[in-house]
């Protein structure tokens, strides 16, 4: 039978084949050559950027004793984009979290970035990590990142060391180095030397498979950067003295600051009540922080630099020195004192009269210093009380009062030395020595910080100069940082005037009627001055400044015990014990030590101290 020839239809069929092939090739060309975004997407799938966190610098004390170091913890990270159908219940029970936490953390992570890793669960312990490690492959998008947590060899110096915590939004805005979840020094040394301590993060690019398992470095580590470990710091702190100071201040509100006059190095800085630095690390940091913040005794405040007090009688030396320098008085000038009947300021002590400067310091005679102050303000050669006051003002400030040292102590307060303009405003231009008489005995508008008081003791010990108080003793390769601490700052008072003040301060201990005579130990050559500061909130603050030994001063101390009463009751013995401890290494006056350590001014009182100002 005849069959029609359809062989030409082969062309139709071949044409269909070729058309389909060309259509596909056009699509392929678009996918492979034209659209570059797919290549990026592919990288996003295969590559994971692993941040290598450097070891944070360790912190040593002046005797190279380790104080702060690091311990490994593990952060569970998540890349939301990679998370794909997983058994959420199993995951939650593995991590011992509840589903609402899971949902919350995922939302948070997605809000930050779908492609970049976020912290899902912070600071798993080594044990927790070992438990979940084997099962992590099941959960795409999750991985574990090693992190370091601060650890303390002894629970001391929480205020000055400061703490490390997660960066907040402000930190992130200020410095692009930080990524959410990073740690940053929040306060104290940790904050001030953050850049030294943190080192430099490194980045490692690795390939991962679909189950999130590492498959080696990406392009042989071409894009990797090494992390640089943080610098270790040696601080001027003597950890033993620091610990001892904290013991002495237990159950008292106030502070101790100890400075080495020869260098300006801070040997100890105690603020009480304090807290255990271990409370502000790890997962419980924020909870503990809130609790400390709510505490009415404000343990988070470093009173040594942020507490401001009227200096009281401890200020009398400064007034005397300024008056001597301006020749308003001489070492031989004597004033009479009527004891409690004195006007306009009465005296709280009974002593010989008339008396000279050395006696006046020894017995803290108020009328003597009122007369001294009056002589200075009314000294004809200074050209009137306003000009005299300005002279006084700048001389006082030369001792470091009314301003910050601006060294390596964050959150320092400047205190207050009122300016002439201030009085002009308050008294509408009409004021004189009598109006501002409180300043003569360190009361009134004057406010100082304990570190300024310790610095005063150091300046007196040095006979006229000081080094800005600081903590840094050594940081490898960072000697330039130390330059500003090795420049002497001179006070406006000539060295020769300091001799009489030093002698008088020595008498405070050495002589029978000295206000701290009870705490005299011959070999220590202690010099000091009490301060009993009137305080509208309750009992007087007990203050003391001291340095020792007189012939070659090794340490200058300021002690403030809020609501401690007389300076000689709490502050003087504490300062004396600190001196004994530092100079001899042991305490012979066990009974005194026991009385101080067991003294409780916080729980045994009806009126609690309010605030630190």
């Amino acid at each position, binding site marked *: *039978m005849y*069959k*029609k020839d*359809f*062989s030409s*239809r*082969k062309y*139709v*069929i*071949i044409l*269909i*084949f*070729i058309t*389909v*092939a060309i*259509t*596909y*090739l056009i*699509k*392929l*060309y678009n*996918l*492979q*050559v034209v*659209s570059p975004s*797919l*290549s990026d*997407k*592919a*990288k996003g*799938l*295969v590559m994971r950027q692993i941040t290598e966190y450097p070891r944070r610098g360790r912190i040593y004390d002046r005797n190279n004793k380790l104080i702060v170091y690091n311990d490994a913890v593990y952060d569970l990270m998540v890349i939301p984009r990679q998370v*794909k159908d997983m058994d959420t219940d199993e995951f939650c029970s593995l991590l011992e979290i509840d589903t609402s936490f899971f949902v919350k953390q995922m939302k948070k992570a997605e809000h930050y970035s779908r492609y970049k890793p976020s912290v899902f669960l912070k600071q798993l312990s080594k044990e927790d990590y070992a438990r979940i490690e084997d099962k992590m492959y099941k959960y795409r998008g999750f991985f574990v990142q090693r992190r370091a947590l601060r650890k303390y060899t002894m629970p001391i110096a929480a205020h000055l060391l400061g703490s490390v915590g997660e960066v907040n939004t402000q930190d992130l805005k200020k410095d692009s180095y930080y990524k959410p979840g990073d740690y940053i020094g929040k306060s104290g040394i940790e904050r001030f030397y953050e850049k030294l301590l943190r080192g430099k993060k490194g980045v490692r690019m690795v*390939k*991962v*498979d*679909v*189950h999130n398992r590492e*498959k080696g470095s990406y392009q042989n580590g071409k894009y990797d950067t090494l992390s640089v470990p943080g610098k270790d710091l040696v601080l001027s702190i003597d950890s033993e003295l620091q610990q001892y100071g904290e013991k002495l201040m237990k159950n008292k509100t106030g502070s101790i600051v100890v400075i080495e006059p020869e260098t300006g190095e801070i040997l100890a800085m105690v603020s009480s009540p304090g807290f255990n630095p271990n409370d502000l690390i790890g997962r419980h940091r924020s909870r503990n922080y809130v609790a400390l913040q709510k505490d009415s005794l404000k343990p988070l405040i470093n009173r040594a630099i942020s507490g401001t007090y009227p200096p009281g009688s401890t200020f009398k030396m400064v007034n005397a020195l300024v008056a001597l320098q301006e020749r308003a008085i001489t070492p031989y000038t004597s004033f009479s004192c009527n004891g409690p009947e004195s006007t306009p300021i009465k005296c709280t002590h009974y002593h010989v009269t008339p008396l000279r400067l050395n006696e006046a310091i020894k017995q803290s005679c108020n009328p003597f210093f009122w007369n001294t102050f009056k002589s200075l303000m009314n000294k004809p050669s200074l050209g009137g009380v306003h000009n005299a006051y300005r002279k006084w003002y700048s001389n006082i400030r030369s001792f470091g009062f009314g301003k910050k040292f601006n060294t390596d102590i964050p959150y320092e307060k400047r205190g207050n030395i009122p300016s002439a303009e201030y009085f002009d405003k308050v008294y509408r231009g009409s004021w004189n020595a009598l109006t501002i008489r409180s300043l003569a005995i360190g009361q009134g508008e004057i406010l100082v910080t304990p570190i300024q008081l310790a610095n005063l003791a150091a300046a007196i010990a040095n006979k006229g100069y000081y080094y800005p108080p600081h903590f840094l003793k050594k940081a490898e390769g960072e000697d330039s940082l130390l330059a500003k601490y090795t420049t002497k700052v001179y006070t406006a008072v000539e060295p020769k005037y300091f001799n009489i003040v030093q002698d008088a301060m020595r008498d405070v201990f050495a002589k029978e009627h000295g206000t701290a005579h009870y705490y005299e130990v011959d070999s220590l050559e202690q010099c000091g001055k009490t301060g009993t500061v009137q305080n509208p909130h309750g009992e007087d603050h007990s203050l003391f400044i001291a340095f020792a030994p007189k012939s070659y001063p090794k340490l200058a101390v300021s002690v403030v015990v809020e609501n401690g009463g007389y300076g000689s009751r709490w502050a003087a013995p504490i300062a004396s014990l600190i001196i004994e401890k530092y100079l001899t290494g042991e305490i012979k006056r066990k009974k005194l030590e026991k009385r101080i350590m067991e003294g409780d001014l916080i729980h045994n009182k009806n009126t609690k101290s309010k605030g630190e100002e």
Partner: protein
Amino acid sequence: MRKGANILANTDWLTVILYLYLVFYGWLSIYSATFDDPNAPMLDLSQRYGKQLLWIGLAVILAITIMIIDAKFFSAFAYWFYGFIILVLIGVLIFGKTVAGSKSWIQIGSFAIQPSEFAKFATNLALAKFLSTLNIDIRDLKTKIIAVGIIFLPATLILLQNDTGSALVYASFVFVLYREGVSGVFMLVGLLMAVLFVVTLLYGQVAVIVFLALITGFLFWLSDKIRRNYKFVAGFFLAAVMFVFSVNYVFENVLQPHQRNRIKIILGMINDPRGVGYNVNQSKIAIGSGGFWGKGFKEGMLTRYHFVPEQSTDFIFCTVGEERGFVGSLVLFGLFLALLIRIIYLAERQRSEFSRIYGYGVASILFFHFAVNIGMTIGLMPVVGIPLPFFSYGGSSLWAFTILLFIFIKQDANRLNVL
């Protein structure tokens, strides 16, 4: 007959070489996609590339065997092959093993085989045999019905196995029927139905029917000839409308949910790169990241690290796309097109109708697999799980395609002996 040297001399070596190229290219891709340890031996039977090497060896033996067997054997026993495979397919429905939702495997010892792969060449044999019978005219309705029946029987059985992809392959015989004289209208109608199906899903029944009515009206207005054949045109219009009405029903009630999703994805009706669209999305990323030159052999990180599911079987093209880039894809397309056109050329030179029809069947089946498989990996076709001939991992599919092709090469080598 002069055998021996004759067979070698009359064999179309170009086809054989294209076949070997494709198989080798395929094996390299499987190796790259599945190797873990670069020091392991090539014939490591615990690895897919090792197994595939074994399957290739067996495929070569199969090919040589076919070349040795008398050419008449296949045409003589065409119906026997067909009958046997139909029985096996029924057997699979009863005794088969379910893998990935399809009950299409027979387990023999530790060895599983997929009979639906072999049903293709058997059906092709039977169809060629039937259409080449003397006194058979494709223009007869009865002939058409029987031919379509031969095609539909295995397709239906495979559909019952829940292996939609393999069943759809039988639609490729439309090229064979067309070549043998069935009116092109059938192909056009098929194409039109596909278009209507898609636009109805995309734009809804009402819009499509209004559009059809407007077109029909326009045609009436346009030409006298159409006005004269108004019955035919109106009937066509009504059929189209009925089809459109059936689309939603078929889509919602006949198709399974995953099939609906795959179609919706390809039409852009849903966008869910992490859920139902995951495979295609990952596949496109892998291929797209290959760029112009590709990342190089064994450097395809997405395919190597399992970001593309099924990358050694249905998504093997991703490895080519990622590691060989656009250039490698072009080479693969070239090889396939060359093979297809060569087969059509060889088919046309056959004296025997059986050989010619069979040859067209081979080209059609290979083309359908090629188009659907690659179309799926680049997002131009819904995901239908059928292998890329000679490339995808798997013994059954490699052997079935080898048998399919080499029966034709044998027929061609024997063409001069046909009167």
